């Protein structure tokens, strides 16, 4: 509840901060249009009492004053309409602008978050912040707030007018309205509760359907359709029940408000009639008529406010989630060492403006001097200990030394810590103990962006982005020419299948390349890494989805790609890592065997068993 309130107040502050002038103007205009509306309501009394009744007693009625009265009203109406139009227009700028700001801020901030955030939050939940939660905000800014403001203005004006007409009937109307508000609150509270439960049940249906459709083929093979349907019907019935309850309360709200309004109308009318006939409180027919119109104009904003209650509560919850994401701490980067183009002059490395094909680490020392360290791709793990959670260590005292140009392979069961090691080199996660150095520099000193630019990575699950095939390859190096991209694709043996696509390199890939096979996506990912041309490569199960025959083709390209680079390989198929300079066998976060293929085979240890198939690798 507190979060919701905070969320709301932050949204309002944000709007105020960005659109101070517009907000003031809009507020004034809303005030004005509400006033025009109220003036119209009171006009009925004036019409009957000041114009019609006197004329009824004249033998030759003079309509001159009425013309003036109506003209005045018309003028006020025109002003009211104009201000309605203008504030609505300005509101578009405010609400859409704020939404756009929030969306862009959210995205920019999300891009800055550490990997840990994405690993510990369900992707569906993050997504929902952009879709559902921002949607509630838009509702809040563009509808609820103006409606509540204009409703309050109307209420204040109407109450004032009512008291001017006569406090007795005013009290009757107000009592009715308060009762209505009270009933509406209790109804919205319940419907809100049931809507939340409906949402939960919908989630259950979602999960069940997902599981059963993923496993649809197994269901068929086991002729398990009937049981599956029975399971579905159970949760479907639950959903139906929750949905019925939620909607019943939501549906009842309108008729209850409306008819309680009528009830108060009837009571006001009867009391008014009674007073008028008995000549009490100097009540006239015109007063009753005006009072009844005011009664309607009073009940309407109350009904509107009660309808907005749920929307405001939901927006509060939405806002709190939006700000929770925005408040997540970004990745920190205290690195000072940068990667620069370099050339050799008189045996000294100096920075170069042009592309030289050579790179250096530019290392400013605390004493003000700068050291240029050539980028070689030398990676050292020194007693590295790491856990994703402080209480659960995943890697224990890892020591390894990868000399520039060496190929280091990791094998081991799922969960042994292979991928974790690669997560540490590019600082997706920071180590708890020990040190990792890159060309002799502690990686914590290197600016993250420069560190990552120097590392190429091909992952098991290839993520592509909607765009053309060419765009996806160019993702590796934005300034790459078409020729460079095609050359990279050829290197990865992706050129063949790309040319068979409908529009070749210009084929547009929808939804992360859904239409491509997993193997084809991996080939593109390899091409993407190839075009980046980094000194160090990390291949995490890069060829797992490529069949044996194609892999031979890719292997050839990969060998070319790996030439002269430091490479870290994680592979399931031992055939792809046999020629590594060093193979590390990992088990439960420890290196249990190390050496090259021949050494490990001779040793007849775990690697040997894996190799001969006596141990399962999964």
């Amino acid at each position, binding site marked *: 509840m507190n979060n919701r309130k905070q969320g709301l107040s932050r949204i309002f502050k944000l709007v105020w901060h960005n659109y101070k002038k517009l907000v003031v103007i809009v507020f004034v205009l809303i005030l004005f249009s509400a006033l025009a509306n109220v003036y119209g309501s009171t006009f009925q009394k004036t019409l009957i009492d000041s114009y019609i009744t006197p004329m009824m007693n004249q033998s030759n009625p003079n309509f001159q004053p009425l013309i003036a009265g109506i003209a005045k009203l018309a003028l006020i109406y025109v002003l009211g309409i104009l201000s309605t139009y203008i504030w609505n227009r300005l509101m578009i700028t405010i609400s859409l602008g704020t939404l756009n700001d929030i969306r862009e801020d959210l995205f920019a901030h999300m891009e800055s978050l550490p990997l840990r955030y994405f690993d510990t939050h369900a992707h569906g939940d993050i997504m929902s912040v952009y879709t559902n939660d921002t949607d509630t905000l838009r509702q809040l800014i563009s509808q609820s707030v103006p409606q509540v403001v204009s409703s309050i203005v109307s209420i204040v004006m109407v109450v004032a007018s009512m008291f001017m007409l006569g406090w007795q009937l005013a009290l009757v109307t107000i009592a009715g309205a308060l009762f209505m508000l009270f009933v509406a609150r209790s109804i919205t509270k319940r419907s809100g509760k049931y809507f939340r439960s409906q949402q939960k049940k919908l989630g259950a249906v979602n999960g069940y359907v997902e599981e059963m459709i993923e496993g649809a083929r197994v269901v068929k093979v086991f002729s398990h359709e009937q049981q599956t349907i029975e399971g579905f019907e159970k949760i479907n019935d639950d959903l139906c029940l929750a949905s019925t309850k939620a909607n019943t309360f939501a549906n009842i709200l309108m008729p209850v408000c409306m008819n309680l309004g009528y009830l108060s109308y009837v009571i006001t*009318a009867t009391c008014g009639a009674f007073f008028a006939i008995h000549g009490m409180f100097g009540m006239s027919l015109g007063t009753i008529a005006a009072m009844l119109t005011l009664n309607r104009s009073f009940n309407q904003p109350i009904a509107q406010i009660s309808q907005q209650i749920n929307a405001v509560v939901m927006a509060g919850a939405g806002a709190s989630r939006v700000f929770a994401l925005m408040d997540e701490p970004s990745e920190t980067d205290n690195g000072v060492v940068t990667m620069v183009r370099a050339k050799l002059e008189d045996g000294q490395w100096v920075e170069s403006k042009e592309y030289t094909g050579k790179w250096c680490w530019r290392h400013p020392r605390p004493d003000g001097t700068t050291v240029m360290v050539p980028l070689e791709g030398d990676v050292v793990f020194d007693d590295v200990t790491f856990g994703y959670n402080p209480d659960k260590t995943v890697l224990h005292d890892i020591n390894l030394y990868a000399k520039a140009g060496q190929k280091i392979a990791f094998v081991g069961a799922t969960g042994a810590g292979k991928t974790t090691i690669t997560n540490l080199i590019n600082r997706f996660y920071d180590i708890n103990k020990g040190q990792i150095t890159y060309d002799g520099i502690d990686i914590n000193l290197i600016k993250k962006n420069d560190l990552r630019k120097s590392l190429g*990575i091909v992952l098991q699950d290839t993520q592509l982005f909607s765009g053309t095939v060419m765009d996806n390859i160019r993702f590796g190096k934005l300034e790459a020419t078409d020729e460079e991209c095609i050359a990279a694709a050829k290197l990865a043996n992706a050129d063949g299948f790309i040319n068979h696509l409908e529009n070749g390199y210009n084929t547009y890939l929808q939804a992360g390349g859904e239409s491509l096979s997993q193997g084809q996506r991996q080939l593109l990912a390899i091409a993407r890494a190839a075009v980046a041309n980094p000194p160090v490569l990390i291949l995490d199960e890069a060829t797992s989805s490529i069949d044996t025959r194609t892999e031979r083709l890719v292997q050839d390209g990969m060998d070319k790609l790996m030439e002269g680079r430091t490479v870290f390989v994680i592979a399931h198929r031992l*055939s792809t890592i046999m020629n590594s300079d060093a193979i590390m066998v990992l088990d439960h976060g420890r290196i249990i065997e190390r050496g090259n293929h021949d050494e490990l085979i001779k040793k007849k240890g775990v690697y040997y068993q894996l190799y001969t198939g006596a141990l399962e690798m999964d």
Partner: protein
Amino acid sequence: MLKTLTAQIKQYKRQTILTPIFVALEVVFDILIPFLMSYLVDYGITPGNMANVWKYGLLMLACSILALICGALSGKYAAEASAGFAKNVRDAEFRNIQNFSFSNIDEYSTGGLITRLTTDVTNLQNSFQMIIRIAVRSPLNFIMALAMVFYLNSKIALMLLGVTVVLGIFIFSMIGRVNPIFVKMFKKYDALNESIQENIAGIRPVKSFVREDYEKERFDKRSQEIFDINRKAELLLVLQQPMMQVAIYSCILLVAWFGAHFVVDGSMQIGTLISLFTYIMNLLMSLMMFSMIFVMVVMSLASAKRVVEVINQVSYLESPKDGIKEVKDGEVVFDHVYFNYAEQVDGHYVLRDINFTLPSGKTMGILGGTGSSKSSLVSLIPRLYDVTKGEVRVGGIDVRKYDLHTLRDAVSMVLQKNVLFSGTIKENMRWGDPNATDAEIIEACQLAQADEFVSKMPKGYDTYIEQGGTNVSGGQRQRLTIARALLKKPKILILDDSTSAVDTKTDYLIRQAFATKIPDTTKIIISQRISSIQDADIIMVLDKGHLVGWGTHDELMNSNEIYRTTYQAQQKGGSEDE
């Protein structure tokens, strides 16, 4: 489309009919109230008749209470009817999906089907509720209010009608212009969401290639596009409220001016004038509501189309009426079988002229590279797909003549992409046989070499398997799915690369168990690993949909090039350990 959807109302017919009835009654009472009000003024207050004041006052009170009751009841019935309708639609969809054949499933994506079962149905539910409630209410309200105004004063009624028609034309022409913009906007939203989705799922490549700024730029561009198009739509829509005010205010001015004249010349009562003001609001608001609902229903049409598509999707493969209910034995015959997944004009086949006879109780191994159609071939045996040409016979009879349930019980297949379901191990095992005793389950698991690791788990056979079976390793999952298939006590057992993650020793033990414990079952084993099939009675070699080798290990070593080279490659050490 409409017929399919209305057919889903079923047991909620009563509520569906009662809703508009109560809505109509509510409208009648609502309309009567201002009318009674004018009587109260004209016959009660003006002549100073308190008896009439009480009479009409009480009548009005009764009306508003009745209106409240009717309104609440219609709301309740509308909720029941629409939630029930949604339930039936989901049920019909889900049932038909269960009826889908493999080729039907191939045509839809999982995400697509989930949307069709959730979001689309929710849209339909809302529209359905709108239609039976407000789509009845607004026109009815409009007509009755108009009738009342005509009754009170036909000249003023004509004027109001004129204003309403102008407003109506304006609103609907605006909808006509705004709607296509909104449709475009939704598409842009989809694109934006897709790029968010990609960035969440693909945060690793984004970060490792340091493409945060690049992605931000792309996102901002898309977000700006939505801003622009949204603004365009809103700038049109923004005319709606002032236009509505123009209509209301001009009506008030008209009624005030002409009403004053009529009252002064004695042709209208003051009370009538008051109720006329009330009806103005009534008329125009109902027009507004109607236009809103119209927009919503039009927008949900796309959802309706998608949902109906699923409900009416004809399964490509139906169980024959009076299908044969018994499978004699496990003999498998392929007789000039041609197969293709979808109709293709160019005469390309995935399987071409396959002929063989596998006697009951024998073990057959199948070897072939990726794309050699091994899986396609075996999926024809339990009739997961129908042959394009030729005939597949099980137990001497064409598979298409069997009752599907009978056939699939007799032919147990462990799929390459095997799935366990959320639930305990026991529950998963009982998919094979719902009446299996604990002892039978343990026996099947022993056969599949799964008993050892299952009994080591803290909860043993009651261990809960997470959705997708993520809490057991690949090798364990494979062994459990084999056990599950064994519980069917099938006449034919097919393993489609089902021991790929199992180590060679366990693989051997499983095959040993098969040979000794279920000797009468025909066994068909697909494997990338020669060691898994080399001791089979018969080995089939497939290449690009052609049967290119048939014989025992020794025979094939002599006669078949593919078999020999694969064998040699694996012996040399390129062992497939995937």
